[in-house]
């Protein structure tokens, strides 16, 4: 497994898309951070960039990469390697490459301009989202035989989590505003990793108070460590679940 990860990484660090991704993130971060004098605002702007770019680029790049290397995967699977090992190694390599790009693009500017818990949380959140959306790409890869369909699915998944889900959530809030929906809301939020990533960072910023403004439950949730712990646990689940599912499906998949 280590061998495969190592060599696939060697390929990925030279990958143009990865390099461009890191550069674009870096440019955006530097411009945002040098523009905002207020650190909390800078983090918020970076958060918005992260929430938009990381899921879409992460899932698209991973899906395309998995499908493109299918012949190589076959070649490697003709070697005495377990399928699970192969799949995990590919996932780890791709996710790690994307993570490195994120750390270079966002982490370094943050470290230069200001550090602190909120900045660190933003980094963690971005890395979580990278891991989650490459895991979802893995799931798409094992579910679809056709690359075009896979890419289509990846776009839909990315759009769903970055935009559609919140839209549905908002209409849910709208239709049930008469009822005590705070608890179901917290439950629903955990169904969207992008929202989880957002809340994880907001919790470290003083703007979290503004969310607490809306009700006792949010206040409790936002105000204590429970919120952060809950969010992190949900996000870990969001990484593990797609991977386990993928490994199971991949065991029976015809290549």
């Amino acid at each position, binding site marked *: 497994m280590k*061998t*495969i990860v*190592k*060599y*696939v990484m*060697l*390929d*990925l660090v*030279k*990958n143009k898309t990865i390099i461009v991704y890191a550069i674009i993130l870096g440019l955006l971060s530097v411009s945002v951070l040098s523009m905002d004098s207020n650190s909390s605002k800078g983090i918020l702007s970076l958060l918005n960039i992260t929430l938009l770019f990381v899921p879409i680029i992460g899932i698209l790049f991973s899906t395309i990469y998995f499908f*493109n*290397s299918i*012949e*190589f995967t*076959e*070649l*490697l*699977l*003709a*070697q*005495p*390697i*377990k*399928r699970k090992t192969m799949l995990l190694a590919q996932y780890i390599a791709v996710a790690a490459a994307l993570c490195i790009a994120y750390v270079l693009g966002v982490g370094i500017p943050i470290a230069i301009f200001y550090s602190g818990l909120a900045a660190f949380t933003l980094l963690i959140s971005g890395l979580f989202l990278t891991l989650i959306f490459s895991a979802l790409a893995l799931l798409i890869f094992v579910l679809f035989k056709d690359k075009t369909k896979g890419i289509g699915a990846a776009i839909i998944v990315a759009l769903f989590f970055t935009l559609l889900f919140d839209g549905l959530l908002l209409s849910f809030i709208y239709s049930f505003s008469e009822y005590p929906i705070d608890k179901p809301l917290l439950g629903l939020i955990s169904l969207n990793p992008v929202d989880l990533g957002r809340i994880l960072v907001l919790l470290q910023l003083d703007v979290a108070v503004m969310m607490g403004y809306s009700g006792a439950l949010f206040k409790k949730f936002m105000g204590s460590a429970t919120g952060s712990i809950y969010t992190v646990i949900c996000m870990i689940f969001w990484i593990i679940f797609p991977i386990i599912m993928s490994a199971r499906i991949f065991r*029976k*998949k*015809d*290549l």
Partner: protein
Amino acid sequence: MISIEHLTKSFSKFIALDDISLKFERGQAISLLGPNGSGKTTLIKSILGLVIPEKGKIEIDGKEIRSSWEYRSQIGYMPQIGRYPENMTVGQVIGMLKEIRRDCKKLDEELIAGLGIPGFLNKTMKSLSGGTRQKVSACLAFLFSPDILILDEPTAGLDPLSSELLKDKIAKERENGKLILITSHVLSDLDGITSDIVYLQDSKLMFYKSVDELKMSTGEQKLNKVIATIMQNQLPKHSNN
């Protein structure tokens, strides 16, 4: 060495392999022939464990391969299309496989030298021509001195010189008592190296006979002629059914 019993596989509605039973032994060089979509590749992939059979079983040296993976250390596989991570160099690809196959004590680097691979070890995969990539695939298939060689269209895209070299190597390995499975469209390329022919059509096994036997029955010497004759004899009979 390889024994296939009642192997059946279908993809959604399309039946790719229909109740195939075959037995291959050491020292055989078997050509898998048949029109496009007849199930050749599916058969190969089933042996490699890349395709999971629906019914029937495949045994190698008496052990069923289902869900096991260790057996693949005995197999060298050369895929029809060799696509590699584009930024990897040839050297890295070979290095990677060597690292994966640390278990293999006896490396066979004859082809690497013969095909001139050391000349472009530092080139990235994306900069290589299709033929050169085929050469790399061929080298990798033979590198770990496997007992079974599965070659999917090995000569397609190779220059005549390399093609000859590869054929010589195949013949040599067969003499060394290895089992070789080849699919190819270029029947002339198979002349002289195949001992047996498996012919698949419409996912069914049409026949599995030795080349000598076929030559006797058809009275032809060239393999393509042999096959053509069989086709002519069989097709009307087939359409009558």
